[in-house]
Each structure stands twice: as C-alpha cells, then as structure tokens.
C-alpha cells in the first residue's frame, strides 16, 4: 500500500489517521461520560480527567495534521455510482465531523483554561491558557462541550451506519476503501 492517496485509493497515512481518530473519539466520549460520575474518593477521580484532557490535546494535533495532509494528498475521487445527492450529503457530513471535532476540542480546552491555568499533557509539558475573558467561560464552554460531544458521537454512529449501507445495500467500495482496497 502507498503512503499517499491516489485518485482511486486511500493511502496508509489517511487510513491510519481515520481509524486512530475514530478510536480516540469513541474512547474519549466513553471516558468523559464515565469520569463525570466518579465519586470524589475514587482513585480515578483525578486520573481520568487528566487522561481525557491529555488525549484530547494530542487528538487536536492529529486533526491538524490530518487537515494539512488532506491538502498535501487529497482524498480519492467519488465513486461512479455516487450521485449528486450522495456527494453533497457526504461533503456536508464529513465537514460536520471535522468542524465539530475542532469546536469540541477547543471548547474543552476553554473549560480548563478559563482561570488562566494551563493543561498538562501526560505530565510532560503544559499547554498554556490563551482566551480567558469569555463571561462564565467554564460554564458556557462546558455546555458547548457536552452537547457537541453527544451530537458528534451520534453523528459518527450515523457515519458508520452510512458506510455499512454503502457496503451491504449499495454493494459499492465505500467502506472497503477505508481499509485500503
């Protein structure tokens, strides 16, 4: 398999990033959902949010790299049997996933840095605060983060179902392309 995408196939870089981000997104949702219910005396009370924030910040860099890579190596062309509506829906859906993820990660960052505090990443370095002047910042960012997390995880599920629809109902290469075929 090639590193770069071709006009008919995805390359290794795009494929790896796609599946790693999918894993991270579903994992972070589950972690976030679980960690807010933890008891103050749970051993994970501090660890879980630290992990959630560290992975989220690394994901931000991966997503940035992904956008840059897309410019450097654009995705393959639409399949011949994908009509205008399919292509439009695909463009809109994928844009929502990309945009939504960036807004989600930024909103999370704005919660923890609202008081000027930085966020440690796996205890190795700290991402400094920047924007701290939004009124009720941690609360507003918190609401955005919570609602968008649900919207994205539900939409990612729809995205997966759509791929399965293409594979089992339309019987086209859509899903298999994301495995390199």
């Amino acid at each position, binding site marked *: 398999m090639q590193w770069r995408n071709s006009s008919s196939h995805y390359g290794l870089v795009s494929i790896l990033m796609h599946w790693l981000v999918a894993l991270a997104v579903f994992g972070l949702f589950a972690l976030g959902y679980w960690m807010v219910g933890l008891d103050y005396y749970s051993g994970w009370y501090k660890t879980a949010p630290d992990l959630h924030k560290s992975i989220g910040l690394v994901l931000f860099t991966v997503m940035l790299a992904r956008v840059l890579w897309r410019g450097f190596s654009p995705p393959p062309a639409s399949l011949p049997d994908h009509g205008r509506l399919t292509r439009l829906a695909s463009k809109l859906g994928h844009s929502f996933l990309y945009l939504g993820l960036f807004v989600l990660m930024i909103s999370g960052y704005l*919660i923890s840095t*609202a008081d000027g505090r930085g966020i440690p990443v796996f205890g190795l370095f700290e991402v400094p605060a920047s924007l701290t002047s939004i009124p009720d910042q*941690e609360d507003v960012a918190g609401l955005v983060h919570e609602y968008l997390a649900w919207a994205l995880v539900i939409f990612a599920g729809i995205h997966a179902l759509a791929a399965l629809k293409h594979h089992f109902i339309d019987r086209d290469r859509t899903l298999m392309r994301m495995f390199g075929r």
Partner: protein
Amino acid sequence: MLKKTLVALALGGALMGAGQVMAADYAIDKQGQHAFVNFKISHLGYSWLYGTFKDFDGSFSFDAAKPQDSKVNVTLNTTSVDTNHAERDKHIRSDDFLNVSKHPTATFASTSVKSTGEGTADISGDLTLNGVTKPVVIAAKFIGEGKDPWGGYRAGFEGTTTLKLKDFDISTDLGPASESLELIISVEGVRK
C-alpha cells in the same frame, strides 16, 4: 414661650447631630465592594479551602443603643462562586453542589438579634441555600463606624456561622472532614 421653643429646637438639633446613637439604615457597599461573603471548608482534612461569592447585595439597620432591633438582609448570586479554580467552580455550580441553574440565589434574612457582649451579637435568621430554608445563627462582631472622607457615614461588621451541607440538601460526599462549611460575612454599609 420663645425660650422654650428655642431650647426644644436646640435639644432636637443636638440629638440629630449625635448620629451614632440613632437607629440607621445602611446599604452594603457593593459599589466600592467593601464587603465579602467568603466560606471555608476542609479539604480531605488536610487543609482549608477558601472561596467567595463575588456578586451579592444587601442592607442592614443597626442601632448601637438597641442592638436587638437590628436587621440584616443579604441576597447572593450563587453563580458568582469563586475558589480560584475554573474546573472546581464549574463543578460547584453543577447539581452535585449548588445547582445554580435551579437555585441562582441564596439569601439570609434576620429574624432576631441578641446582644452577647460589648460589640458582639448573635443574629438569628433564615438562610436559604440550594432551595432549602433553615434557621441559622450568625455570631457577629461590630468592627467600627463613623464618617468617611467623602460625605458618607459607614458601619462595618463581621459574622460567622457554620452549616452542614446535608442540612441544605447538598449530599455529595466530600469525606468526613468536609461535612460542614463556615460562612464568613464581612460587610461595610453606607448609611442611607
């Protein structure tokens, strides 16, 4: 007749001038923020955590000669809680603690005042917190009063009371050392 009237007027004037010994209404100095509603709670039994409510207002009426006739009213915006930590403050505002979206204000309204010594008094009143109203007693101390350099007259107090979180339906378990919280109300009022 004229002399009696003059004497009466002079006496009345003297009494008015001696403002200190009259009952007076004060507005808590919110504009200059010479007033603080702070709290203190144990963290794990290892240290004290201090916080404040930045947005509150109120008034009191105070008569040094008759302290039992004094009254206090304070209303605070629970969303304004600040413990110098964004994530912790967000958690405190949630329904795990203050549930500010459901209970945006907390109030204290005095019901009676009992002098406990020179310049100290127990202020009994109703505290409404997290939507629950319970009687509390604030142990108050008079700090001072007098004219200010800008044409006003001020009086200041500090009072403390300890309350149990569970009594106000705040049931999140923070450990045995943190079952109660001390409220410290330190205010200066400007005479109306």
